[in-house]
């Protein structure tokens, strides 16, 4: 059997690729997929930090736990701590790895329960996907700069 173990480098590459795909899907108007890929990019990026800093810790698909255990917080300067905290909280609350099993209807119900982007004008689904993509972009970009 062929099995390729992920490394910090493969996770970093995957994060960048997922982010690129998320942007493409957003432009195409597939906001559900853009949302899912944005969160997946963040999970992949945090896993890269985890393998570099704490490889003994076994992760789940849990952004909150990964943010705390991965060592990502070490890269946050005083000026960026608040912004990155905000972004990671957005991903942790709005993204689930099991969204890949959701129908569009279930996903909308999930976001409705969170009241995500309810106060903004325009297409709610587009706004939600944009918020998640922007948060993911800042998390991954900052992590890449400080790698």
């Amino acid at each position, binding site marked *: 059997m062929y099995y390729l173990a992920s490394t910090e480098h493969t996770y970093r590459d995957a994060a960048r690729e997922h982010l690129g795909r998320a942007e493409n899907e957003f432009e195409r108007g597939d906001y559900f997929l853009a949302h899912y890929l944005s969160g997946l990019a963040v999970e992949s990026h945090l896993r890269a930090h985890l393998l570099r800093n704490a490889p003994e810790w076994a992760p789940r698909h849990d952004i909150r736990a990964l*943010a705390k255990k991965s060592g*990502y917080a070490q890269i946050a300067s005083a000026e960026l*701590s608040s912004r990155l905290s905000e972004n990671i909280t957005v991903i942790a609350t709005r993204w689930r790895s099991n969204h890949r099993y959701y129908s569009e209807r279930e996903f909308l119900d999930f976001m409705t329960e969170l009241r995500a982007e309810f106060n903004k004008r325009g297409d709610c689904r587009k706004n939600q996907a944009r918020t998640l993509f922007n948060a993911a972009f800042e998390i991954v970009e900052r992590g890449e700069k400080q790698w």
Partner: protein
Amino acid sequence: MVDPVKEILKAESPGMELELESMSSGKDTGDAVWTGFDGLDHLDRQKLVRDVLRSKLGVEAQEVSILLTFTPTELHSMQEA
């Protein structure tokens, strides 16, 4: 820094639950769970806790790195997933 940060935030935000740990850099990271975050967007939550820390700790407030802010409902939803 973990203990003073916890004391300040708990005193200013009754009922807030905090999980904080010190990193090798000496900075703190973790999360805060509080009903008072309900109805606030994520930017305002950060502003609230950072303003409290700055007012009490001054420049040392910068030793708090990533601090995630959740409502109990959000935490419950994440734990169920």
